[in-house]
């Protein structure tokens, strides 16, 4: 077990490093992607700022709380691009038979796939998202004693994101086609809905986004905990959700691999 985990970690690390070295060979692409990430976060900041020039609260949340939410979301949802972006290539690997190559190598398949690509937009997105989060934190008057809790919540959110991207993309083992439609739909839903506090939505949507597709545990619930809007019991939610989703992601990915029948020749 210990040897397997070490082998997996080594494969993951080496593969990620190899792809990092390959992507920085194209400096123009690096700068375009990094600038794109920065621009998206400037746009998010602009959106919240413009909104609060016209209203005092959104779903009962003030300006700085909203910045914390948008910043947390940017870091949680944007960081997997730097270490798990290859998972978006499952659809391609299944469609063109590239998966054959991965499953015949003496290395675990999921880390091989996850490190097939690095999303350089994360280079711009994560620091600016973090800056927005810290600015909101200071403005909202959250104490420094919450820093360990915030770190735990960020770690859980990262696992939740990685697991949900893996599950959504694994659907392409069964839904054939080069476009990861379920993955795109997940991202779109998160981008559209989760940048707002859940109280702005009807109850059915809140329940859906908290328990059925638990995106709330990757941004809204953590920020509610940090702001003291949610009771301490909610602190159990993100680690439990992360553990459950991680196990589910591994199970679904393996089921997908078992059902994979190659592209044929």
């Amino acid at each position: 077990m210990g040897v397997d985990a070490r082998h997996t970690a080594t494969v993951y690390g080496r593969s990620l490093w190899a792809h990092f070295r390959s992507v920085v060979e194209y400096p123009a692409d690096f700068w375009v992607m990094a600038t794109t990430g920065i621009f998206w976060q400037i746009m998010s900041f602009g959106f919240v700022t413009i909104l609060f020039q016209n209203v005092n609260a959104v779903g009962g949340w003030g300006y700085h709380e909203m910045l914390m939410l948008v910043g947390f979301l940017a870091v949680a949802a944007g960081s997997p691009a730097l270490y798990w972006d290859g998972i978006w290539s499952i659809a391609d690997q299944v469609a063109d038979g590239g998966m054959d190559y991965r499953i015949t190598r003496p290395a675990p398949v999921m880390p091989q796939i996850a490190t097939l690509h690095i999303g350089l937009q994360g280079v711009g997105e994560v620091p600016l998202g973090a800056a927005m989060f810290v600015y909101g934190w200071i403005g909202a008057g959250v104490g420094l004693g919450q820093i360990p809790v915030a770190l735990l919540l960020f770690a859980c959110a990262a696992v939740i994101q990685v697991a949900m991207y893996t599950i959504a993309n694994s659907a392409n083992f069964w839904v054939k086609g080069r476009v990861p439609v379920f993955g795109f739909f997940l991202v779109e839903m998160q981008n559209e809905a989760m940048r707002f506090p859940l109280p702005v939505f009807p109850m059915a949507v809140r329940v859906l986004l908290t328990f059925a597709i638990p995106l709330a545990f990757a941004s809204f619930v953590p920020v509610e905990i940090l702001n003291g809007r949610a009771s301490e019991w909610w602190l159990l939610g993100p680690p439990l959700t992360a553990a459950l989703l991680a196990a589910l992601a591994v199970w679904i990915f393996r089921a997908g691999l078992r059902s994979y029948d190659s592209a044929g020749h």
Partner: protein
Amino acid sequence: MTTHSFAVDRAFAIIALKRKLAYRWNWAFSIGFGALGLLVGLAVWRSLIGSGSLGGYDWADMRAYLIIGFLTGTLAWGGSDWQMADRILDGLISIDLTKPVDFQRARAAEYIGSMISVVPTAVLGTVAAFLLFRPAPPASALAAGLTILSVLFIFPMAFCVNYLAVLMCFFTRRYLGIQWLKDGLLSFLSGLVVPVALMPIWLQGLCWALPFVHFTTTPSNIYLGRIDTPGALGLIAVQAAWTIVMWYGARLIWRQTIKKVTIHGG
């Protein structure tokens, strides 16, 4: 410059339309994304506006604004920009250059052909949204007609914006970052994310100095009667002017960028 007949344009458009319809999942999801944005927008702005108004939009006006945004957004993002980009990125352009067709016109025909694939569902979705959410009616029959005219200009304008973005592939060798940057500019500066009327004056000035604002704000302003008839005609004239400027601007850029083409292989 090579030129070709309209029949060739029509053939390119039909092939692109059929290709788009062949990928039903992508097609269905492009509509689904727009509908999702519309529903979230309705929930959020309902919560923000309540019984008052924001930036001169009351709740009925905002419903109309969001539904028009759904229609224009679905059309604006309905084309196949990746198909254009891939021609440059995978070297197919070397074959295109040997064909007796005008490259830009051929891509325009293909792009508009692919946009047409989303028209039936975009229109049906818009009609359904009007019946479900009962937004403010058009300011007048003339305003409704001019809104349709303004929306029609989205076809050539969307092509021009996307084609100009795709030409950047000659320099970057990849399209993803360019696409996201273009999408971000388009959605924010068009007023799709937040109405331009709510932005600070300097940002409103920037929006109106660029073509993106005519994708959402112009048709909705005409529809809601936020500008009078001469103003509406003026804005439509500006849409036409942007189309011409971008079309010929793209030709100028093409002349320079085509010198950078590197074809690999033997």
